[in-house]
């Protein structure tokens, strides 16, 4: 289920980057892009097609353009035929460069869209890659609540009825932000980061037992919500079990795996009357401090060791 292949409509890319449709082709709305990698066909225009991945968007920049300009017309025709016959999803010409006459009939023959941007090749490439990485990221829906607390993305997990939504409302009242309630769509946007958001239909709604559905954005204002947030910390809320051992020092760092990425996580025991919002705030700040290089549990342990060494002397 997690390793499914995702795709994005070429039309969405055109819209996002305001690309000029030099040649649209037929049924452009059916063209899907499945690869987050892109290719500059410099090697290919010279005739080298080993390891060529036809699923990638091809980007024609100044190098390829200048090379092709110095070729005879029949050679250009041959080279475009070789490239377009691989059924690439689209060819993007950067820097607003001129379109070669030979491209049109061959693009038409193989129905390959030709697009153009005014951006420089490197700028367009980096923007497109980061966009595609998000659009094509592996994703999963988790039952939980995602809040942003002091700039940290905190994912609250736990059984239904443990108090995740109530804690979220309390956090919002204290000036933090709600990202998603009940269902959190998590995307692995890079090999080290996860980003969560709410499914569009239920975005910024929250369910409170006894009251029903409330609209957080309407009640608390635009400052109380956020569309997406990275996930820095996972808090597993569970009913307090008498006699169970809970972490007292915080020296051992637990991790929770989501989409193959290990995220720092803590088990928070929940008891009626325990102020969850404050505890979540502290957990977020402590995690932030750890990332910035200070670990309170380690510092305390260090101080103890120094004390022991001194008494030995």
């Amino acid at each position, binding site marked *: 289920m997690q390793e499914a292949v995702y795709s994005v409509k070429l039309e969405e890319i055109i819209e996002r980057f305001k690309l000029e449709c030099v040649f649209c082709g037929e049924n452009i709305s059916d063209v899907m892009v499945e690869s987050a990698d892109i290719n500059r066909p410099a090697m290919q225009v010279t005739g080298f097609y080993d390891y060529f991945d036809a699923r990638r968007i091809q980007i024609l920049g100044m190098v390829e353009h200048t090379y092709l300009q110095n070729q005879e017309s029949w050679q250009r025709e041959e080279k475009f035929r070789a490239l377009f016959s691989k059924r690439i999803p689209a060819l993007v010409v950067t820097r607003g460069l001129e379109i070669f006459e030979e491209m049109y009939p061959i693009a038409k023959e193989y129905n390959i869209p030709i697009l153009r941007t005014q951006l420089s090749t490197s700028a367009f490439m980096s923007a497109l890659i980061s966009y595609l990485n998000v659009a094509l990221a592996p994703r999963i829906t988790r*039952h939980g609540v995602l809040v942003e607390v002091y700039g940290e993305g905190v994912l609250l997990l736990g059984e*239904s009825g443990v108090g995740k939504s109530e804690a979220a409302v309390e956090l919002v009242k204290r000036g933090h932000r709600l990202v998603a309630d*009940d*269902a959190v769509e998590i995307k692995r946007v890079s090999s080290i980061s996860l980003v969560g958001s*709410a499914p569009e*239909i*239920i975005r910024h709604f*929250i*369910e409170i037992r006894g009251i029903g*559905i409330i609209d957080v954005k309407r009640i608390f204002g635009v400052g109380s919500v956020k569309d997406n947030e990275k996930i820095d910390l996972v808090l597993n809320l569970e009913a307090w079990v008498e006699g169970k051992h809970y972490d007292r020092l915080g020296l051992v760092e637990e991790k929770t795996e989501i989409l193959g990425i290990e995220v720092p996580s803590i088990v928070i025991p929940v008891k009626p009357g325990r102020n969850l919002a404050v505890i979540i705030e502290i957990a977020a700040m402590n995690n932030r401090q750890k990332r910035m290089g200070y670990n309170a549990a380690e510092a305390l342990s260090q101080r103890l060791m120094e004390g022991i060494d001194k008494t030995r002397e």
Partner: protein
Amino acid sequence: MFSKEVLVCNQVGLHARPATFFIQKANEFKSGIWVEKDERRVNAKSLLGVLSLGITRGVNITILADGPDEELAVNSLVDLISSNFAE
């Protein structure tokens, strides 16, 4: 893990009140229960989760359960949907 596919064929689909009946039923069981539609899987015990799938009339969904009463849970929920929530 036990699962079954079911076609939603009541008037409004799994929205508003039918959805509340559905999650109420799901909450009666101990097992973990999920609803799956087009590769998106949500907790069947969560109202907003189920609503977020946007299940309309004529959509096929899969109900999955894992736990001590998984078979009973899936069958009861499938029956509830098949009976059109006794509309």
